């Protein structure tokens, strides 16, 4: 159906003074023959909005192009219902606030943005949501320890049918085997009774469906339609669930590797969990006990990370000893006491009970007549201590996530020709460890991708539940080392995310970070060459493959970043409102001055999340920058399709600059590695460019963070200067 377009140009905020509005209107009315093109002194004011609404009502306008301020502001004012397309042409932040007023170049820039906006809306449609068939709202929790039980309970309490799968015969996990637990509430000083029995009862009472002695044989499907095959002794069952919480916990670090601390050599050198077991059986009457912190943790030879919970767990166990025998001498050898937050009170409580804390590294443990001697540096006294007669030495041996226990998945060697042909450098992919937890039937491997040390954590500070497998949320100590208090919150948080995933999937919307986005990639399979780039590069494992290598998309796993679209050499992937032709046509809509006009053109593809706001910010701060640039926002640089570079160079652009997020270990791309992928793609065409006599330096990638707006003018000037040196794009004349 033909769109009914109207263009509104705002002349407020100085736009009317800086630009020739009539000429701008002519672009819409003349070049693009837009039937309605109006101007207003303050479009965001009540009269301006009324003007637009009137046209929608009276003239059936369904596509509104607003040329004025940035889409980052007044978004709420210019909302006309989900069935209307609203396109914003940013004349304020990206034109008049950062370029000379009343200037030919500024005017050309504004007119080009008008063209790009008009072309863009022409090439997009209102997305229709994807609906999952046989949709399930059920939540599955994997792991029946503290975190898992909490997640299950919280999910059930919110009114969701919940299924809990535990591999042991009994629920409770590691915490379930504890004698007592660390305090979980103010005043954070007292040992608490183990919460697991009550928690288990609450979970049962809440109607959670529980599978014990059960493992997951495989997990297929996608959010809203995961099919999980659960294996028990007497066979398998299948459950359809909407989302999954992975709470399979951690295992104590292998104490056998701690021979240097006497484990394995002396029977009374034991681990935290062994001491816990002893305490359950009745804390042994001991008169002298030592706890050795960081036995394995914070040790490059063992676990380089800190296991987060051991300090307060040892404090707790020290209090067991004192509880049993007030006169017992209890020592804790530590590097740093990490009783963060209100656990400081717990630390002080242990001191008040007489537990002695010694900052020092244990250098040797020896035994004579069943009694142990500890040699250690006493750092705050500058001495060595040689304390003897210990009944027990308890090693705080840290934790290893269950997700890290398994073999690393081998990179599959590609023999496929099509794949090999277009397969040169690849973006680094996070390792997948075959830990036998989820057994995903995913093209990209059976488990959640592991981050450092095997924790399938989120990489993002602001979004700790950001997951690379949509609908599956890791929680508790499998996700990151944490104490019990954190694990309980984490279980509830992950349950929230699982519930949310179910809710948005039902509506056909994307989950974070493109929350609410209804668009999803559609594949024109006729032209697919089975190159597998889309399946490989999808950061979320959303696309499976059939035996022939054809992509099998799972829209509810998709996060709508467009990486697949950028990856596809055949350009068969597109979204309703975001596609290769859409951007390509925007590129083509930009007017290209003749070479002798000496008006070079620079095309910028900029990431919507960081680079675009940074460019806006440069405008807000009235930083002036080069007016040869034309900026096209992308969902993510991962969606950059190389054909756009072709288009741009063919059109005669003198240079192309990609502005993406920082990559590397501390990458900031919210789609994992969009900017990295774009750079890799770019590297592949540099040779071609050179061959065509187009200097590859004309096409560059750079990273900007949202805070780099002060650097942007210089960055652009520098690029422009380099281009001037190269001279005009020789293709200009071939147009």
């Amino acid at each position, binding site marked *: 159906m033909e769109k009914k377009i109207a263009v509104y140009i705002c002349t407020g905020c100085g736009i009317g003074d800086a630009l020739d509005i009539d000429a701008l209107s002519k672009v819409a009315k003349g070049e693009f023959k837009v039937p309605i093109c109006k101007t207003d002194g303050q479009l965001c004011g009540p009269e301006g909005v009324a003007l637009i609404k009137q046209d929608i009502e009276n003239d059936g306008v369904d596509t509104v192009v607003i040329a004025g301020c940035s889409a980052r502001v007044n978004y709420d004012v210019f909302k006309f219902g989900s069935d209307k397309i609203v396109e914003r042409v940013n004349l304020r932040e990206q034109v008049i606030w950062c370029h000379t007023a009343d200037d030919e170049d500024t005017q050309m820039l504004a007119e080009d943005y008008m063209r790009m906006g008009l072309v863009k809306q022409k090439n997009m449609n209102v997305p229709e949501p994807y609906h999952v068939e046989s949709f399930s709202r059920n939540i599955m929790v994997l792991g029946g320890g503290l975190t898992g039980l909490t997640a299950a309970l919280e999910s059930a309490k919110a009114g969701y049918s919940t299924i809990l799968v535990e591999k042991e015969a009994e629920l409770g996990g590691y915490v379930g085997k504890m004698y007592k637990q660390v305090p979980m509430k103010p005043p954070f000083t007292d040992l608490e009774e183990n919460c697991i029995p009550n928690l288990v009862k609450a979970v049962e009472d809440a109607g959670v469906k529980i599978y014990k002695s059960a493992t997951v044989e495989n997990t297929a499907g996608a959010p809203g339609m995961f099919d999980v095959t659960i294996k028990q002794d007497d066979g398998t069952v299948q459950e359809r669930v909407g989302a999954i919480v992975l709470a399979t916990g951690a295992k104590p670090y292998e104490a056998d590797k701690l021979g240097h601390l006497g484990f394995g050599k002396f029977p009374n050198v034991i681990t935290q969990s062994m001491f816990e077991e002893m305490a359950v059986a009745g804390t042994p009457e001991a008169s002298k006990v030592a706890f050795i912190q960081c036995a394995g943790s914070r040790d490059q030879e063992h676990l380089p990370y800190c296991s987060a919970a051991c300090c307060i767990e040892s404090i707790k166990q020290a209090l067991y000893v004192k509880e049993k025998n007030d006169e017992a001498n209890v020592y804790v050898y530590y590097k740093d006491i990490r009783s963060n937050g209100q656990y400081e009170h717990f630390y002080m409580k242990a001191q008040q009970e007489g537990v002695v804390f010694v900052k020092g590294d244990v250098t040797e443990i020896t035994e004579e007549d069943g009694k142990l001697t500890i040699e250690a540096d006493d750092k705050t006294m*500058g001495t060595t201590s*040689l304390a003897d007669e210990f009944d027990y030495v308890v090693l705080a041996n840290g934790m290893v996530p269950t997700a890290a226990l398994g073999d690393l998945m081998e990179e599959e060697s590609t023999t496929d020709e099509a794949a090999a042909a277009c397969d040169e450098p690849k973006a680094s992919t996070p390792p997948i460890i075959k830990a036998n937890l989820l057994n995903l039937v995913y093209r990209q491997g059976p488990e959640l991708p592991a981050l450092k040390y095997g924790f399938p954590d989120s990489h993002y500070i602001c979004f700790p539940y950001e997951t690379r497998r949509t609908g599956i949320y890791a929680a508790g100590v499998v996700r990151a080392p944490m104490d019990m208090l954190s694990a309980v919150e984490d279980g509830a948080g992950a349950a929230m995310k699982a519930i949310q995933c179910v809710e948005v999937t039902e509506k056909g919307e994307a989950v974070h970070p493109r929350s609410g986005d209804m668009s999803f990639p559609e594949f024109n399979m006729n032209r697919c060459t089975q190159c597998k780039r889309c399946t490989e590069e999808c950061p979320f494992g959303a696309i499976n493959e059939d035996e022939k290598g054809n992509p099998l998309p799972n829209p509810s796993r998709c996060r709508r970043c467009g990486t697949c679209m950028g990856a596809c050499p055949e350009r068969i992937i597109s979204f309703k409102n975001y596609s290769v032709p859409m951007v390509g046509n925007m590129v083509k809509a930009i007017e290209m001055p003749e070479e002798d006009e000496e008006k070079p053109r620079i095309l910028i593809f900029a990431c919507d999340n960081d680079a675009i706001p940074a460019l806006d910010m440069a405008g807000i701060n009235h930083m002036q920058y080069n007016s040869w640039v034309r900026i096209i926002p992308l969902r993510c640089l991962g969606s950059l399709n190389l054909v756009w570079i072709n288009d741009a160079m063919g059109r005669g652009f003198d240079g192309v600059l990609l502005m993406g997020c920082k990559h590397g270990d501390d990458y900031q791309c919210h789609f994992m590695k969009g900017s990295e992928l774009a750079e890799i793609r770019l590297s592949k065409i540099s040779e071609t460019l050179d061959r065509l006599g187009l200097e590859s330096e004309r096409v560059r990638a750079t990273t900007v963070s949202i805070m780099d707006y002060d650097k942007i003018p210089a960055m652009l000037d520098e690029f422009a200067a380099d281009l001037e040196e190269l001279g005009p794009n020789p293709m200009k004349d071939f147009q």
Partner: protein
Amino acid sequence: MVTPDKERAAEQAVPHSFKKKRGDNYFMEQKKIFSEPVKYDLTFAREIYRLENGSYIKQCMNCGLCTVSCATRDVMEYPPRQLFNLIKLGKKEEVLTSNTFWSCTSCCTCKARCPRGIPIIDVMHDLKKYAIEYGYTDYPQAAFYKAFWTEMSSRGKMFEGGMTARYFLTRGLDEIVKAMDMKDVGISMLKHGRMPLLPPKKIKGLGGLKKIISKAQELDRKEAAR
């Protein structure tokens, strides 16, 4: 019992603050504790924990704020923090023969600052009392404290002349000789009417005060025995 010789005690009263220089920065070496390995033995610590304010020292987290806060840090052998550690190590002799608690002037800075809320000066008072009880009284301050109390409790009020006399009687003539320049101070005080030669009148309720004191001490003993 180890007796610190008077010479050493006197020598340590001389400030040797920040003598060492490293670039623009200065540092002050602390007393080396011991070279051979030490054992942890809480027997002595438990004795100290039982003193009026003794159990507070268990709370020390070795932050070292007391060390820096002390008005007499330049002369103190072990800062309070180290002294508390020594107690936990069972180093009774080192503790009781150290000048630490005797150097304390009760200025309350450490007490006001201690992040663990340890009333450090009160612990120092306990240690002074403990040291006197066990005969570790070779520091001049011990004599001074005793003189003060004797003077006060025998009169109900303080008479500086009497207290000074008692102090020097205990410490011996050496001490007077060393303090000869005090003479000038004394004379100017006299000249300005600030040093009465006669003691103040005893308080009327001295008998009652003495009863209060002995009852208080009795209650203390009772509580300690419990």
